[in-house]
């Protein structure tokens, strides 16, 4: 027998207990200080013989929980096979379509270049022809509308979503349609039309209370947007109870501590339809969350905000997702059958991009064929599965190797590695002990 490489121990000094988590298999065990003395001996020497009377049952629990495993198990190979399965996944087609890169907002931290122009009928027809060929090959299609602001291309959104809806139904393919929108144009008329196409899933960003939001997310003319977004979100939720809205808060040092007040402001009756997620702003030093806040401060505040959201009746499914075992790829862009279709007909892999033609991985022809830009396509798909340092990281099964674009461009895994262990520590405590208020100190013991 040998010790799994992916055991993570997190102490809770208040309860004098330790959480033993295995990031590869997802097992979670809470142990007393006395038990940990025996556990540490066993993990250090899994084949050792010890005199303590309870050690046999503890050893069996560690084997059952896969903290101790058979000698012939190659754990890194298991992770490699998971990633290969995720990359090759032939069950699902993932599409992100951008009907325009233009936007009516001028957010202070936006990384996009908003170019005028929207998808014309030539590209729309080419896309429909390509979908006719592709969709029946899969079991499931996931469509995300993205941009720019996708509702600036409302007619194209409706025409293509309806086409895909009918095609999937005819082909016996399951589907989920989703839109990331700033929400400003989400009128009663538009929400009804989108619902009629089975699009019930939205992501809208609100960056804290009216004061902080209006300083960060404003119209091009400088006008604030909070009140209109708030009204639109409440109306969309009430028009059809199937509508689910991911309420995303992008935070940095300026708005992180306003999140509880924002959460209090939405009416009770729609909170279960609002799925909250808090994400750090990245980019330049002035706006970056990690450039202005410590990992500990971020984790402490966001964990507290998730707890508040849950208590207020919001949908908080993402809280535990960082602990889900079985993640196959770092993000959607690593899947071979994932495409970002720009309004020009150019095809990309990553949505965090300025969508320059020279970065495209392919183009849709007028007859609905996808022609690869071979050099860019090969560079994207032929990368090593992991960077060298990933091979010795105990959090690898939860992360799966970091951002492929960063790896490609900077030959590293990015600056967010530190957040994975810190968040994992917090999430583990929340799952195991359920009360973050009592957890003041954090300690991640990794190899």
């Amino acid at each position, binding site marked *: 027998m040998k010790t799994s490489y992916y055991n993570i121990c997190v102490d809770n000094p208040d309860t004098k207990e330790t959480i033993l988590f295995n990031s590869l*298999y997802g*097992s*979670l065990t809470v142990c007393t200080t006395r038990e940990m003395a025996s556990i540490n001996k066993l993990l250090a020497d899994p084949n050792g013989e010890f005199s303590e009377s309870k050690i046999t049952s503890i050893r069996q629990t560690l084997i059952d929980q896969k903290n101790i495993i058979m000698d012939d198990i190659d754990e890194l190979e298991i992770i490699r096979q998971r990633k290969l399965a995720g990359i090759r996944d032939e069950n699902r087609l993932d599409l992100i379509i951008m009907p325009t890169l233009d936007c009516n907002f001028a957010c202070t931290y936006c990384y996009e270049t908003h170019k005028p122009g929207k998808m014309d009928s030539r590209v729309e027809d080419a896309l429909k022809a390509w979908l006719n060929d592709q969709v029946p090959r899969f*079991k499931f299609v996931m469509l995300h509308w993205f941009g720019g602001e996708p509702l600036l291309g409302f007619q194209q959104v409706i025409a293509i979503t309806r086409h895909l809806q009918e095609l999937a139904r005819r082909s016996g393919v399951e589907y989920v349609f989703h839109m990331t929108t700033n929400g400003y144009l989400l009128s009663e008329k538009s929400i009804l039309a989108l619902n009629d196409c089975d699009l019930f899933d939205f992501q809208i960003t609100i960056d804290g209370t009216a004061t902080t939001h209006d300083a960060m997310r404003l119209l091009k003319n400088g006008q604030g947007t909070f009140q209109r977004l708030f009204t639109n979100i409440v109306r969309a939720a009430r028009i059809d109870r199937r509508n689910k809205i991911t309420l995303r808060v992008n935070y940095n040092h300026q708005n992180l501590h306003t999140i509880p007040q924002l959460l209090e402001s939405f009416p009770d009756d729609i909170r279960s339809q609002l799925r909250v*997620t808090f994400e750090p702003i*990245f980019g330049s030093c002035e706006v970056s969350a990690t450039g202005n806040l410590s990992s500990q401060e971020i984790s402490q505040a966001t964990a507290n905000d998730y707890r508040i959201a849950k208590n207020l009746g919001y949908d908080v499914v993402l809280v535990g997702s960082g602990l889900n075992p079985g993640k196959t790829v770092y993000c959607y862009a690593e899947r071979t059958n994932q495409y970002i279709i720009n309004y020009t007909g150019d095809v990309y892999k990553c949505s*965090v991009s300025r969508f320059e033609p020279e970065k495209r991985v392919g183009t849709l022809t007028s007859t609905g064929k996808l022609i690869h830009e071979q050099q860019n396509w090969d560079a994207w798909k032929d990368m090593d599965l992991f960077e060298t340092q990933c091979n010795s990281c105990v959090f690898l099964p939860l992360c799966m190797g970091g*951002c492929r674009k960063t790896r490609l461009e900077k030959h590293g895994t990015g600056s967010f590695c530190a957040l994975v262990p810190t968040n994992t520590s917090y999430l583990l405590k929340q*799952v195991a002990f359920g009360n973050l208020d009592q957890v003041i100190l954090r300690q991640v013991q990794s190899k």
Partner: protein
Amino acid sequence: MKVIAKPKEEKELLIAVSEEAKPKDVQQGIIAQGQCCVDHLCGCNCSC
């Protein structure tokens, strides 16, 4: 020792990407993993 979660089997973890997966399995797998974040402003760890 208090067991909060048992280890998952590999077959169970990879059902959504397996050849034998039914369309509903694929859909359920996506929901279970909470794969909803499109705009990776964050390089986030949201299981996409």
